[in-house]
């Protein structure tokens, strides 16, 4: 009997889509970052931005797009990367328990002698590992393009932004996991994860509109991840702890919920 059967099976069943996501992320980065010297670094983009309504610029987080870190943040970490990773991880979170239950896989695994807590924890581990893989691919790609695209990023910034992005998207994923464990319904699970992601982003975008609304950031996971500009400033440990702590709590909710209820096919 070897360790982590659920984790191993999940990976065995899903490495193909994982590779597809990685390719998508590499493609997005390859598309956006090399444009920086042409449109960001020489002030062209700054001119374009000046022509845009201030509200829109703030909402998109384009205010500091004139720097390498600001550009990478605005285009990838704060937008496309967040979007792609959220979609991927929320769908995984919904598939992990609720999807397994709807497909009948959970019933068979549990009957074979996987503990329910073990199942929830191994499912969470799968989420973390797969997300880490994508974030790592993204980080390596950013670092590779750092020189050619003249972004001027430092390693700590890339690392800090990666950990922030991962912590942010992991909340959506673990919310989906927890709601899946509570309800056994994949649709509910996915909806919950998506709602968390949209909520965080929307709240942050509204807060960008006015300094008077700054307090909204306190309630937005998106702001916790990116308000301190990790690409430029490095790790913001208290907020990272908050992000990851919420994910840990959601995993605990998933484990307890799954232990308590009937598993339905």
């Amino acid at each position, binding site marked *: *009997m*070897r360790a982590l*059967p659920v984790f*191993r*099976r999940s990976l*065995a*069943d899903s490495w*193909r889509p994982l590779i597809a996501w990685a390719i998508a992320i590499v493609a997005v980065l390859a598309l956006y970052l090399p444009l920086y010297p042409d449109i960001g670094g020489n002030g062209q983009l700054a001119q374009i931005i000046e022509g845009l309504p201030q509200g829109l610029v703030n909402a998109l987080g384009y205010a500091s797009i004139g720097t390498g870190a600001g550009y990478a943040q605005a285009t990838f970490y704060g937008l496309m990367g967040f979007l792609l990773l959220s979609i991927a991880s929320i769908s995984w979170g919904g598939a992990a328990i609720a999807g397994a239950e709807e*497909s*009948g*896989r959970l*019933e*068979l*695994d*549990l*009957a*074979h*002698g*996987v*503990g329910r807590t*073990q199942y929830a924890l191994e499912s969470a581990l799968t989420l973390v590992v797969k997300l880490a893989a994508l974030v790592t691919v993204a980080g390596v790609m950013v670092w590779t393009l750092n020189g050619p695209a003249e972004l001027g990023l430092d390693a700590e910034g890339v690392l800090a932004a990666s950990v922030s992005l991962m912590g942010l998207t992991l909340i959506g994923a673990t919310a989906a996991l927890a709601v899946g464990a509570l309800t056994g319904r994949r649709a509910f699970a996915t909806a919950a994860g998506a709602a968390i992601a949209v909520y965080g982003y929307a709240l942050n975008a509204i807060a960008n509109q006015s300094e008077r609304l700054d307090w909204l950031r306190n309630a937005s996971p998106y702001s916790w991840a990116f308000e301190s500009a990790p690409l430029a400033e490095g790790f913001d440990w208290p907020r990272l702890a908050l992000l990851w702590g919420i994910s840990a709590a959601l995993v605990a909710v998933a484990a307890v919920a799954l232990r308590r*209820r*009937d*598993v*339905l*096919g």
Partner: protein
Amino acid sequence: MDRPRRPCLPDTPPLLSDNLRSISIVTTLWREYAAAMADRLSAGQQRDVDPDAGSASRGRAIEVHGLTKHYGPHEAVRGIRFSVERGTVYGLIGPNGAGKTTTLRMLVDIIRPSSGTMRVLGVDPRRGGPALRRRIGYLPGDLRLSTRMRGRALLDHFARISGPVAPGAIDALAERFDLDLDRPVRALSKGNRQKLGIVQAFMHEPELIVLDEPTGGLDPLMQREFIDLVREARDRGQTLLLSSHVLSEIQQAADRVAVLSAGRLVAEGDVESLRLASIRRLRATIAGTTADAVGGTLGSISELRDLTLTPGGEARDPVRVAATIDGPVDPVIKALARHLVVDLTVEEPDLEESVLSLYGDEGRQGQETSLGTGSRFIRRPRHAGDGHAGPRRSGDTEGGPQ
């Protein structure tokens, strides 16, 4: 509990009349008590000699008391009670929606009972956890395997959880069922997925194997192979609990049977004497005679019910006969043989039909709520002629808890 594994056929009629039943309960209760005392004594002696002696054949693999499950107002299982001796095959039959799947799922802790107690391999499934479930092989009734993994990889996955699996065991089973383990599971046909399900339930030779509608999707040849597999497992000392809505399947495989209907256990007994088995639907076409003449020969046969005779249009056209045989078929066949039989069908009736016709409203409303313990489980005769061991109707075992 040192009864012979295959009991002698009871020579009493399967169902006693209502008057005799109460006497039977008293004798059964007494025999139950005596047997329990004897078991206790012999078990104590055994333990002194060898704690594991005969562990495969003695004791109960499953004990269920007052098991109830409701989903909101809907009661799926309503206070059922049964027990399965180790080293035997126990069949759970009933129409669809009778509560079979719910019961089996509770035994493996997939769903939790609303009330009642269970003991599986001596442990409460709610407390037994993964360690208990590794001792159980389980085939879900609604087996849906949609993974891209190959059959072998999927079985390896289950072996990692429930192992160890003896080397070669998987291949031997796969070969036996003519199952290709190198194809992706989701590309397999329904029958082949079912075979995969059977393999995963048997491969680690668990003490208890719980199978929900195991032969669904299997062709007749494979069904026979499956029955052989079940018997071999039993002969090795494993205990099997299987559900079906097909009576003949249970008849071939099981030693003992419980009939579920609408969440209640309406009958329980040795499979050979189960009265359900004796109901047959008869259809025949008879030529060269008249409906009156056929009615004359068949009308007097007490085993026949619901006799319908449809005469042909012309005087000498064949007569169509439809009836229900409730008992031995022999007198009916002998009577028919006096005529020219053009066509004859004798078939097992729909299980729902037979449960309802035999157990009537009990199957729907049920009288079982206040069943006592002890008398519920009918002991097999210790030697030939040792009383009645046929199936019992639930209403005949009223009694208080021990």
